[in-house]
């Protein structure tokens, strides 16, 4: 197991956010974390990336507690892409990707064979050749996300955490980015991503972890987790689940509330 989480508890100012979270992520899998707004999925990702510390429970990365890694050492094992990273004005796509090498570099070790090789691979895998010399601020949403993913890829860590990499993108760009993420797992990396779009999650992820009200509501192969009963309960609404004509992936269609009568149950 690349990553193991045991009985994780996290509270923010006495308000419990996550309770009794346990799961493990096998190597080389694409695992999606889904759940309604405010269920604690982004918090979970922050705990897993070492941005915050849990009050109780343990996180093991390759069998060692997360807290035992030095900061730069952790960055070589685990890459984290926040939901809205800040883009410094003026930097080129090339520079952005090169910053992924930072954890491997030092003051007297600023550029080596391995840096050049990893940056070249990241450029090829994320198909950035044509925009390599463009200002990163000038890119479209999908291109920008591919550039950030290339940076993460250049970081050369076995584990990758992505916080809603497809939110705020149209379906074309969403597909572009999900395909790119899929290529990252094909490299043998383990990817854990928080994602809102259940259909995208079910189509691309190997496994899903559904979180509701701070606990794990369901976990397992993606197409088994996305069921009507779970979605109804998790999102407090009523949906129909259809299947895509192409590959049979589930498509979630929320029902319309009839005559103003809310379908949300009172409980």
């Amino acid at each position: 197991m690349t990553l193991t989480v045991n009985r994780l508890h996290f509270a923010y100012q006495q308000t419990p956010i996550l309770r009794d979270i346990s799961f493990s992520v096998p190597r080389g899998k694409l695992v999606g974390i889904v759940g309604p707004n405010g269920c604690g999925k982004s918090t979970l990702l922050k705990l897993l990336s070492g941005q915050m510390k849990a009050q109780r429970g343990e996180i093991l990365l390759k069998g060692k507690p997360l807290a035992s890694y030095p900061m730069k050492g952790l960055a070589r094992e685990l890459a984290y892409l926040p939901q809205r990273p800040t883009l410094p004005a003026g930097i080129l796509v090339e520079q952005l990707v090169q910053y992924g090498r930072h954890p491997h570099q030092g003051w007297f070790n600023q550029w080596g064979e391995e840096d050049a090789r990893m940056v070249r691979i990241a450029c090829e895998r994320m198909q950035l050749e044509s925009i390599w010399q463009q200002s990163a601020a000038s890119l479209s949403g999908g291109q920008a996300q591919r550039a950030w993913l290339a940076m993460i890829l250049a970081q050369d860590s076995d584990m990758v955490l992505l916080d809603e990499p497809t939110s705020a993108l149209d379906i074309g760009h969403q597909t572009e980015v999900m395909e790119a993420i899929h290529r990252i797992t094909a490299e043998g990396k383990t990817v854990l991503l928080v994602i809102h779009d259940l259909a995208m999650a079910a189509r691309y992820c190997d496994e899903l972890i559904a979180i509701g009200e701070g606990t794990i509501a369901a976990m397992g192969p993606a197409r088994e987790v996305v069921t009507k009963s779970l979605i109804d309960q998790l999102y407090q609404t009523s949906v129909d689940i259809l299947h895509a004509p192409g590959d049979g992936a589930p498509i979630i269609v929320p029902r319309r509330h009839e005559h103003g009568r809310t379908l949300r149950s009172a409980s």
Partner: protein
Amino acid sequence: MRTPTDMLCLRAGNRSLLLHLPSWRWLALLAMALLALALLALSVGGGKLGFAGVVNTLLGEGTRLEQLTLFKIRLPRILGVVVAGAAMGLSGCLVQTLVRNRLATPDMVGVNNGASFAIIVFSLYLTVGSWPWWAAPIGAIFAALVLYALCRKPGEQGYLFVVIGIGLSELFEALGQFVMSTQALLHLSSLYLWNMGSFIAVGYSTITPIAILLLLLCPWIVYLSRSLAVLRFGPEMARGLGVNGDRVQLGVLAQAILVAALGTAIGGPVVFIAMAAPILASWLVKDRVVPLWLAALSGALLLLASDTLVRVLASPHEVATGIMTRILGGLLLLFLLVNDRQRAD
């Protein structure tokens, strides 16, 4: 192996260093411009010592009077201006990069006024004779602590940081003027001029220790600059890349406060150099890198240009250099604000 664009890779064994070529080209160009401007500045002013005379005196062939004019009056002033301008440009670039806001510079957020307030208090009440330049860091650190207490996360709340800082800046400026008003005007004229930003009375006894302290700070600034560049991605991304944002932020703020305070101690709280110099420097390198040293050189160049201009225009009277930077800087500030608003529309 492909070297990053615009970079020169120096290699020795398994050690390597990347140099951003456009930055180094501009550094060389600005250094030459600064030297030329300094020669020009040495050649103007009262005392009938023109360019030829300056060159002769520098070569050791001047009369006693020429030597006195050059080495005791003009040179210390110009050196003081260059050191102060460089310090302001550097400190401005550090804070602008950290807070990710062009308006966030030590002179805008009250650090310089805190420094000058401390110098006013010490020179009026607590020291006799010598210039208490060393009080500047005390006042600057005090102002910064107040600012930090009111705005805990300068890296994440840039706008709040600037607005609170402007209020603090006004407060310290008014306090300084209040303290001065308690004394008879007779004793004050030079202090009053200094507080508006003037280099007329600068001597080697002030410049030398300040220059040495600034040089001692440089290795630390160089050391943190790589992490500072990564911190531009925000604290979360920086942590993901192995950079401790909190620690780097604290270190860079401390550097900026000390550098700004030492710069202020020479010729008073000269405003806007700290804002204009990094903007000029970033423009020269097209925003590709954090131009710390280019901002220092730009600061020296801008302040020397302002000071020389003021000397030529106001001659034979003496006008504070700070008034000239205020005019030029005020125009720049208006331009930036209007430009930003148009871009936002």
